[in-house]
């Protein structure tokens, strides 16, 4: 089947999902109110809380959620056939991710733009916040371990990518220094950065770097392990640098790369008219992980990702101009991520091989499929790029650099986030010394995932990676389950029908639990005494989540039946006031600002209680 037909069909389904299902969610489930005064208006301080046009906010939101994860999962999941992988991506995006991302944003907006962890405490119970922190700790540990292995595998498989990847660090630092010190526009320097990166791709292609000899002399089992150690050493240092110095410019370069990669996929397919050679449903060998439940934890990002609730309930919620904009930002963001996953499926089912026999050799068993998934994606993208006239070998380095860049940026942020989580947990446990020692907390944030990434098993086929990826998927789905529980309770309290939220929750939690139980048995039988306890802990967290959600949902149903439901939205004090008035203007950053036309009456004393005659214009609407 021509890949372009599949792409067109999926895009049409996404469009219908956005047009009809998101409208149903907006009107019937979340009951969006265009007159609701959002936190962006209520606490407007010009820093965190700024009413922002929905198109502006979509750009921010999408670049915050798109990354390497929606590439890796689908590239493995095609092992069961492109049909099931794509079906889960489409159904997951429309009925799970859209509900989850959109809902997290709405609930956060209705609770003073609080993050999902705090919302769990508000809506479910105080214990739920502890549960959230623990889930996030394991999620970040697995994210960092998984992506270190991904990068290590790619640098071994594509030694031409080594020079551009490591050249990107000084390039990003130079750009960061330049634009920060001189306050110059970022666009041209970052485009120059991308061009320099592509020059380095050409250099790397001609000067590949391999560490096999060095890894052998150090007594490491495989060269990948040496790369993993180097990567974690780098991220430990990077996590201590100010974000503007490396992380922001690097992320800026990556945002260009994201759109270049998407363009290469879709334009390359259009030009080359590649055909899908992978089977619609693959006859997998005996002993392979079964499609139920493993498909649904293999593809997390791209179908539903708990991590998105962090972004939705964070910066995005603080900037939503109108509650009704949540549909455009939250749901459409999920569709964007689904489109990236679609590109990954097309790359590994059409681009990577010219014949069915070639494809079968790449996906002969699950270990080969998971170990080679990212490489298959790289080769698929390279094939699409070669349709556009780029030499294939050079194109493979380009694609490897794209994936490694995404994964490395996720690790940069992930290690930093993990350090915060370690400090937060230490604070809860009253371990003051750890809570206040950045170096020690940072070391823990690095050593735990490093130990996991270096676990022996499977050799070059990547048994360890396959297992870590599945554990990452289960933990990510748990995070999504927690967010969906919060959303479901909130919808119930608003006396609306929560079925659209309960449906993905009721599907996701059993699948996750089932996968964890199967994996636990597998680990115990194989004598994996590191992975088995880890799996058991995540399983306990999953069961804890089920219990918490069941308790609160049952209680809410009962209250609803008895007519004793509390008010649905938080009535606690909002954020602290903003900064002092600026001496330059006499106007504080939270000074009185006009209320947007059509908004509900604000609380006295809030910025929205300002003169209604001086109203903000209604948000512009150019969306077609």
């Amino acid at each position, binding site marked *: 089947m021509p890949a372009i037909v599949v792409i067109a069909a999926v895009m049409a389904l996404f469009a219908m999902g956005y047009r009809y299902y998101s409208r149903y969610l907006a009107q019937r489930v979340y009951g969006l109110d265009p007159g609701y005064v959002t936190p962006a208006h209520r606490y407007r301080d010009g820093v965190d809380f700024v009413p922002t046009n929905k198109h502006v906010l979509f750009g921010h939101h999408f670049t915050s959620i798109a990354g390497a994860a929606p590439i890796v999962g689908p590239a493995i999941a095609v092992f069961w056939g492109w049909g099931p992988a794509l079906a889960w991506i489409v159904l997951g995006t429309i009925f799970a991710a859209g509900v989850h991302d959109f809902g997290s944003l709405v609930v956060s907006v209705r609770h003073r733009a609080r993050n999902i962890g705090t919302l769990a405490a508000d809506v479910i119970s105080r214990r739920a916040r502890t549960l959230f922190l623990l889930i996030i700790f394991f999620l970040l540990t697995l994210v960092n371990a998984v992506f270190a292995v991904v990068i290590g595998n790619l640098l071994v498989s594509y030694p031409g990518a080594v020079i551009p990847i490591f050249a990107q660090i000084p390039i990003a630092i130079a750009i960061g220094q330049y634009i920060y010190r001189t306050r110059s*526009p970022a*666009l041209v320097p970052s485009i120059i950065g991308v061009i320099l990166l592509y020059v380095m791709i050409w250099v790397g292609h001609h000067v590949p770097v391999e560490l096999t000899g060095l890894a052998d002399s150090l007594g490491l089992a495989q060269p990948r392990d040496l790369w993993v150690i180097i990567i974690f050493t780098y991220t430990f240092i990077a996590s201590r640098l*100010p974000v503007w110095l490396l992380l922001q410019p690097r992320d800026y370069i990556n945002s260009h790369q994201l759109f270049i990669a998407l363009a290469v996929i879709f334009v390359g397919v259009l030009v080359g008219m590649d055909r899908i050679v992978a089977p619609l449903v693959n006859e997998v060998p005996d002993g392979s992980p079964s499609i139920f439940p493993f498909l649904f934890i293999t593809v997390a990002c791209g179908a539903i990702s708990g*991590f998105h609730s962090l972004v939705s309930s964070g910066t995005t919620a603080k900037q939503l101009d109108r509650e009704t904009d949540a549909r455009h930002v939250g749901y459409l963001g999920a569709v964007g991520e689904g489109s990236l996953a679609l590109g990954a499926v097309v790359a590994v089912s059409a681009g990577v091989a010219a014949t069915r026999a070639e494809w079968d050799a790449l996906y002969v068993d699950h270990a080969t499929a998971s170990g080679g998934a990212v490489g298959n994606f790289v080769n698929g993208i390279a094939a699409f790029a070669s349709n556009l006239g780029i030499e294939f070998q050079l194109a493979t380095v380009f694609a490897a650099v794209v994936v490694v860049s995404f994964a490395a940026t996720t690790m940069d*942020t992930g290690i930093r986030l993990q350090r915060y989580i370690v400090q937060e947990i230490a604070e809860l446990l009253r371990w003051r010394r750890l809570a206040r020692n950045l170096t020690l907390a940072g070391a823990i944030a690095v050593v735990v995932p490093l130990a996991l990434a270096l676990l022996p098993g499977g050799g070059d086929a990547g048994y360890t990676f396959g297992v870590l990826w599945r554990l990452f998927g289960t933990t990510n789905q748990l995070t999504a389950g927690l967010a969906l529980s919060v959303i479901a309770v909130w919808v119930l309290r608003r006396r609306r029908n929560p079925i659209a939220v309960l449906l993905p929750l009721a599907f996701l939690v059993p699948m996750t639990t089932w996968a964890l139980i199967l994996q636990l048995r597998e680990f115990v039988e194989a004598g994996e005494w590191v992975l088995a306890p880890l799996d058991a802990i995540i399983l306990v967290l999953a069961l804890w989540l089920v219990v918490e959600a069941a308790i609160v949902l049952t209680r809410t149903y009962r209250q609803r039946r008895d007519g004793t439901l509390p008010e649905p939205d938080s009535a606690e004090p909002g954020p*602290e006031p903003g900064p002092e008035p600026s001496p330059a203007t006499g106007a504080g*950053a939270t000074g009185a600002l006009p209320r947007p036309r059509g908004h509900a009456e604000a609380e006295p004393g809030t910025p929205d209680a300002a003169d209604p005659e001086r109203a903000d214009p209604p948000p*512009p609407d150019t969306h077609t």
Partner: protein
Amino acid sequence: MTGARQRVLLVRPWRGGHPGGCCAGDPADLLTPPGGRATRRPADHPAGSEQFDFAALYSAVRAGLPATVAVEVVDPRNTVFLLPAIVRDARRRGRSWRTLARSLVTGTAPGAILVDGELISRGEPPPPTQALTQIRRALSR
């Protein structure tokens, strides 16, 4: 945005928070204590205080312009919105290609102010009252 509307784009200084790329949010958002506000403070970032100066500028501009003028705060990273918006605004107002090119090249500078696709300030933003005057002048041209 309708064709008749005018628009002011204010490009933020670089933020102290995380860019949040690749499925990772801002730790300040992740760990806001119950009832608290984001942990981001001027001290968190060498340019943190600029955010608060910029907030004062935004407040003055928003309060000083009529309802028919849209005022948008955009992160300099958000080129996926910023560049098409500059082109759209400039085309609508019939700006010259030279003006458009200048706006595109320099419009992503932190602290830049654009009025209907025309760059009127970049680098250190002017004091709010002066900025408001410049914006009003550009709007009336």
